[in-house]
């Protein structure tokens, strides 16, 4: 039987259980919705190249997690993408630093599609020929993304922030690193990471929670395996590896990202709390109604594409803010000036209160986005917290918590600036 958790204040119910094989199953019932969405993920991503299993240390080439994601769709009886599409579902998958997820949305035949999803993700089937072919395809993909200025900018920031943590490197690996990948490596990484005890199944829709759990129990292996421990190397200092990085590419105007590392509590409700404080701190400093954003917008130094966010994963955490600007250096100066002001004077209560309300309402709205909801629920399950507790947590925070966070974490010496500048004429 699944446990039922009610969140009457926000009109949500969540069913959850951990099966005997260790799989976490989460179901968010969405009555009246035509579509249902299933999200099946493993705690395995591009940053987990080195790991230990039952005391044994293992090293793998960069890009295996992403390569596996591509190859998992191959089944002895055909391609799972085609099978799901023929059955009326829209399937897809992605790999990030700390997670690989397979998902589909459908309006009919949900349980059939769920069976296919569970089956193909738990069935490794690789041949030397298909691995060869995929090396060509992913090699092309890597070359294409290297030309993408947003991709280049993101990794420029990661390399500025981090000295050695593997989040510095592209999830897909390099053309050279993926050349080392063989069917044997894929089989062994699948065996280690794609075990139910390292995975989460999350479903949102007008579905029967018990039927979801029983499908998982029926199709996935019944034994409970040991969970691998990723090794990210020695802890990083909170100061950036380098403060400024500049690239030149074919862009019509400069693109920039400002970022900084923040402490990561590793997991549990404290991690959710810190994520929320960081989010609120950013909203107070650079949100839509902040003097920082509205001032620079009016001066023409920021545009509506300006955005910000934080990422707590892979045993580390950072925040970033960026967009297009004619003068990224000026934006950084103004950001530092705002941080200095708050550090000296604290945060006005109204500013904090507005940010908290805005965040509450926007998070509430995001519960209608099944893909985002399932990702948040799964991230929580993998990090040992319940995502929906965020609403209750939000009430417990104060303007002082936020001001202190800003003072401790956003000081000028903690910031890095990455920018992609337009290439001059002829080089």
């Amino acid at each position: 039987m699944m446990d039922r958790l009610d969140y009457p204040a926000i009109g949500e119910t969540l069913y959850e259980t951990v099966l005997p094989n260790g799989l976490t199953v989460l179901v968010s019932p969405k009555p009246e919705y035509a579509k249902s969405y299933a999200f099946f993920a493993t705690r395995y991503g591009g940053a987990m190249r080195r790991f230990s299993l039952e005391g044994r240390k293992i090293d793998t080439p960069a890009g295996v997690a992403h390569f596996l994601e591509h190859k998992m769709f191959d089944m002895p009886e055909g391609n799972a993408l085609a099978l799901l599409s023929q059955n009326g579902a829209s399937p897809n998958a992605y790999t990030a630093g700390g997670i690989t997820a397979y998902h589909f949305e459908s309006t009919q035949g949900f349980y059939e599609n769920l069976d296919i999803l569970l089956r193909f993700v738990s069935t490794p089937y690789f041949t030397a020929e298909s691995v060869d072919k995929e090396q060509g395809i992913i090699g092309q993909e890597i070359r294409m993304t290297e030309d993408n200025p947003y991709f280049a900018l993101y990794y420029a920031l990661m390399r500025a922030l981090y000295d050695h943590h593997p989040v510095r490197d592209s999830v897909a690996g390099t053309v050279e690193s993926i050349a080392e990948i063989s069917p044997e490596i894929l089989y062994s990484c699948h065996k280690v990471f794609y075990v139910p005890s390292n995975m989460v199944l999350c479903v949102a829709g007008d579905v029967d929670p018990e039927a979801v759990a029983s499908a998982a129990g029926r199709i996935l292996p019944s034994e409970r395996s040991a969970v691998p421990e990723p090794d990210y190397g020695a802890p990083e200092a909170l100061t950036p590896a380098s403060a400024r990085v500049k690239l030149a590419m074919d862009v019509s105007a400069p693109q920039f990202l400002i970022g900084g590392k923040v402490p990561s509590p590793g997991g549990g409700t404290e991690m959710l709390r810190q994520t929320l404080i960081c989010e609120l701190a950013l909203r107070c400093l650079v949100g839509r109604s902040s003097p920082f954003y509205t001032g620079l917008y009016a001066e023409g130094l920021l545009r509506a594409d300006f955005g910000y966010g934080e990422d707590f994963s892979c045993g580390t955490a950072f925040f970033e803010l960026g967009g297009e600007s004619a003068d990224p250096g000026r934006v950084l100066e103004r950001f530092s000036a705002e941080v200095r002001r708050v550090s000296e004077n604290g945060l006005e209560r109204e500013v904090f209160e507005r940010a908290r309300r805005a965040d509450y309402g926007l998070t509430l709205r995001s519960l209608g986005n099944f893909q985002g909801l399932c990702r948040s629920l799964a991230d929580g399950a993998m990090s040992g917290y319940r995502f929906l507790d965020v609403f209750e947590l939000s009430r417990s925070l104060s303007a002082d918590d936020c001001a202190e966070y800003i003072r401790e974490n956003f000081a000028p010496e903690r910031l890095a600036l990455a920018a992609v500048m337009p290439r001059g004429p002829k080089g």
Partner: protein
Amino acid sequence: MEYRREELLPGVWLTALCTDKFKTGTLTLSLLSQLDGQTASMHALIPHVLRRGTVSLPDMESLDARLDGLYGSRVEASVRRVGEVQVTGFAASFPEDRLLPEKMGLLGRISSLLGELLLRPNTRGGLLLPDYVNGERDKLVERIRAQKNDKDSYAVQRLIQLMCECEPISVGTLGSEESAEGIHYTKLTRRWRELTATAPIELFYCGSEEFAAVSDALAEALTGLPRGEIDTDIGTDVRMNSLEESAREFTDYMDVTQGKLAMGWRLGDSMLEPDVPALMVFNAVFGGSVTSKLFMNVRERLQLCYYASSGLDWQKGLLIVSSGVAFDKLGAARDEILAQLGAIKEGKVTEDELVAARRAVRHRLSTMADDPFSLENHYLSVNIAGSDASPGELAAACEDVTLEDVVEIARNTECDAIYYLRAGEDAENDGQA
């Protein structure tokens, strides 16, 4: 979901869907006008300028602070096109009161904010502020220029521009760069006043409040709305046939690594009395789904392109195919796309293909009911066409679409123009065959 539609004021219609399904309420205000090169960029600019500040909330800082305080409610400028009707206004969404820690009465507050944005912007001496107008005008010019950055949609845009050269649709949703650059704040103020007085207005609400509460809140918010002679004569000029005997061909040259191919057809006699579900099923058979002929043959089997898909503008009577193709395969891809349409004309559509197409259309229509803004877009477009068919009704009608219907639609099409985007710097021949 309970649907209701009524005229609130002269030329002001409210469409409301009452439902507890969503966690947020949705409210939009749209001014309808005839798409026209003289006014398109001004109409595209107006909501962005109005969104900069009002009499009581004079700048973005105060406006957005108000919205943040209203639990992250959002009001955004919105500019769209339905056929040859330009739709310009605001789109708002806000949390449902019942899910907030305190009762906020957000429907009333957001309604009155929409009214204020439209009727009482920040002005000086009765004129829109030059600062706001110039700032937003520059951003509009940038947006128009940036249309070139996305080569897939740019190719389709250029195809329509060249194929429908003398028709209003060629103007584009945002108008031209030149007309945007020439906008002056006094002229824009006049246009704003005229538009507000003469445009038919569509209001849309989706949320848990009852119709009477919504209509009261909006009627109050729009107190003082000037209503002159309403421009009821706006619509879409449907051209049934191709311009010339054989399809016209156009080529542009840009710095691209992949070729683009865009092809356009007139829907011909199918536009006499458009059967929307049949058109949708036809499109899914041809190129509008992952089981379509274009996807299965041109892309998967023959590997002639990176992607190839078809879309319909059923208001305007256009069928458009968009494809990304290696430069040396542009001709082969074009021929195969024509051959696939030819196959449908000859009735070469399997039962499996037809079933899969119906299912794809039904899927798309039924998921509309899961998203308030998709519902809004749907009702706006059917309401403009004088219907109020729900997505569910259209989905049900798809079951009755026969092979003969699909074949008939294919036979009625006439290829009017083919557009190629190739690599190179042959600027002299821009847009020439």
